[in-house]
């Protein structure tokens, strides 16, 4: 049995003036015990999807199930067995770390002691601050506490909505290490993020854009769909370089990527020479060009174009 099954889910929000389609027929499924990433920019529909799966929002049409329970009909069973960490910090800011954890343990009819093994490693990191109010913790600490609270009742499926947004790079890395340890305990984890670099840390990813899934595959699988050669270029005047490359009729796309621009051509013949010529004509100083392997972000850019 799949941990999560989503079939053709549509969700629209009506405002006074217009109708916003947050999810336009999304379908996918998640296996038991995998880390499944939902990757997409802000406003892609990630939070709506999470809310539908955690039974706090109703879809307009389509169906979804978690652990075999229907999100509409059997919402009570689902609420007993999942852990949910919303994108917005949702713990009691005026309660201490310890009190928050105790509260969430008790409302799920368990105790901290009972499932301490599960949260031990994470909790040990925030334990020195256990008497501090949750509102006074740093961003990374807050997320660790929220994760503890979502885990304390040993959920079978864990939903994490953008858990690393607003968290520093070191804490992000630690957070993902924790998720991998939780996976070993057999917990299915659905995690959404706007950071492309986190995609590689998931077993499988779904790329989502404007309420539509672009691709659902392993990270490798997504990258292997990227067939064309990819070039990274660099020069002293990056902005002018970008315009010059974009104006070239043979170029399919060019976008900034860290210190480089990534360039994809429409056809595959001798692109490097073509780029070097273009740099010479435009009089670009310190020009560099090299062939690189695409990563998930390149794939996302390519899929978005389609």
């Amino acid at each position: 049995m799949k941990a999560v099954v989503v079939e053709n889910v549509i969700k629209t929000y009506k405002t006074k003036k217009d109708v916003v389609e947050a999810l336009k027929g999304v379908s996918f499924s998640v296996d038991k015990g995998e880390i499944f990433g939902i990757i997409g920019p802000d406003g892609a529909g990630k939070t709506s999807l999470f809310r539908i799966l955690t039974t706090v929002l109703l879809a307009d049409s389509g169906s979804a199930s978690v652990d075999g329970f229907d999100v509409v009909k059997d919402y009570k069973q689902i609420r007993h067995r999942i852990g949910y960490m919303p994108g917005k910090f949702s713990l009691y800011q005026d309660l201490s770390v310890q009190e928050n954890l105790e509260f969430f343990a008790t409302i799920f009819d368990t105790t901290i002691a009972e499932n301490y093994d599960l949260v031990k490693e994470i909790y040990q990191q925030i334990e020195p601050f256990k008497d501090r109010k949750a509102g006074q913790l740093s961003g990374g600490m807050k997320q660790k506490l929220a994760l503890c609270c979502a885990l304390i009742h040993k959920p079978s499926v864990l939903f994490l909505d953008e858990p690393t947004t607003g968290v520093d790079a070191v804490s992000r890395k630690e957070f993902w290490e924790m998720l991998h340890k939780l996976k070993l305990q057999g917990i299915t984890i659905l995690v959404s993020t706007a950071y492309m670099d986190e995609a590689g840390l998931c077993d499988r990813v779904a790329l989502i854009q404007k309420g539509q899934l672009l691709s659902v595959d392993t990270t490798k699988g997504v990258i292997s769909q990227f067939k064309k050669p990819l070039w990274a270029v660099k020069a002293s005047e990056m902005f002018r370089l970008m315009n010059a490359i974009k104006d070239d009729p043979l170029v399919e796309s060019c976008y900034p990527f860290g210190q480089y621009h990534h360039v994809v051509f429409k056809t595959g013949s001798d692109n490097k020479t073509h780029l070097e010529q273009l740099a010479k004509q435009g009089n670009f100083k310190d020009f560099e060009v090299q062939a690189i392997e695409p990563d998930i972000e390149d794939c996302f850019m390519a899929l978005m174009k389609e």
Partner: protein
Amino acid sequence: MKQFLIFVKKEWLHIWRDRRTLFILIWMPVIQIVLYGFALTNEVKNSNIAILDQSKDEATTVISNEIASSRYFHLVKNLNSYQDIGATFRTGKIRMAVVFPANFRDDLLHGNSAQIQLIADASDPNTANMLTNYANAIINDYPQSINQNQDLPYTIKTQVRMLYNPELKGAYNFVPGVMALVLMLVCTMMTSIAIVKEKEMGTMEVLLVSPLKPFHIIIAKTVPYLLVSVLNITSILLLSVYALDVPIVGSVWLLMSESMLFTITSLSVGILISNFAQTQQTAMFTSMMSLFLPTLLFSGFMFPIENMPIPMQIISNIVPSKWFFIIVKNVMIKGLGFSSVWKETVILIGMTTTLLGISIHKFKIRLT
């Protein structure tokens, strides 16, 4: 049960840690009791009265007619015996009784002087005072009209007796009023804000994705405010007994349990408001508009309901504090027992169950 208790504990911590709000909640009744010490004057018209005429002669008939036809009074009953007076007052139908002794006209014409007794319900001291003054004025018109050719003027002495509140203390009237106001403020406003706060902070989303039943969430959120209210009721009663010299004439336990009932009514209103309000501001203003102002206007605390136009009188019936105000006045000041307030009690219980029922039924198990 354990889930419920930890929720109550959590709510209590919210209140306890927000020291400033807690401070206001506890001191507000004290300050209000002191502030409302200023008496309020109201115009009185068409007040219900009863007349006990023991002589039934020409003079008493003229005076009775004068009183009954004035715009201040409305004669509802002619009494037959002195015992009837107390009984009629206890039904709450009349605010004043006029008593003519036997041989009234003979005394006046032959002894040049006669007596009339005015008995007023002084649990509302301003009204009682005004009623007796008006009555006095009307009564004294009569000897003047027959005095014209007399050497020795006829005089009628009025004896005024204030029932329930012989010293005419204004405090007698505003203590019940302040109780209604404070309970309404603490219970309705604070609970609705506390629940809506969970929505605003996003914690409601996490609570929804938990096995907690809506019933548990709602009740657990209200219990701590119930405790604060008990504290408030106690402080108001202590203040009124020891600082304002307003004694609790009736049963303290009856008064306490009726206050608890009204507290629960106010809590249910707060819960209902929180169902619809999305922000703390909305919750606050809805509570203010839907309860605070009606309590001031329609409970009979500041303005006598009898003087309002009929539509307003009908509206006043749906204001819970009106019924509570009547209960507190009857129990605390008049010292009447449960048999005199059972009707109001039943109305409050009915309102509470309806409101709670709607709230739990309408509790949103999902985000909107």
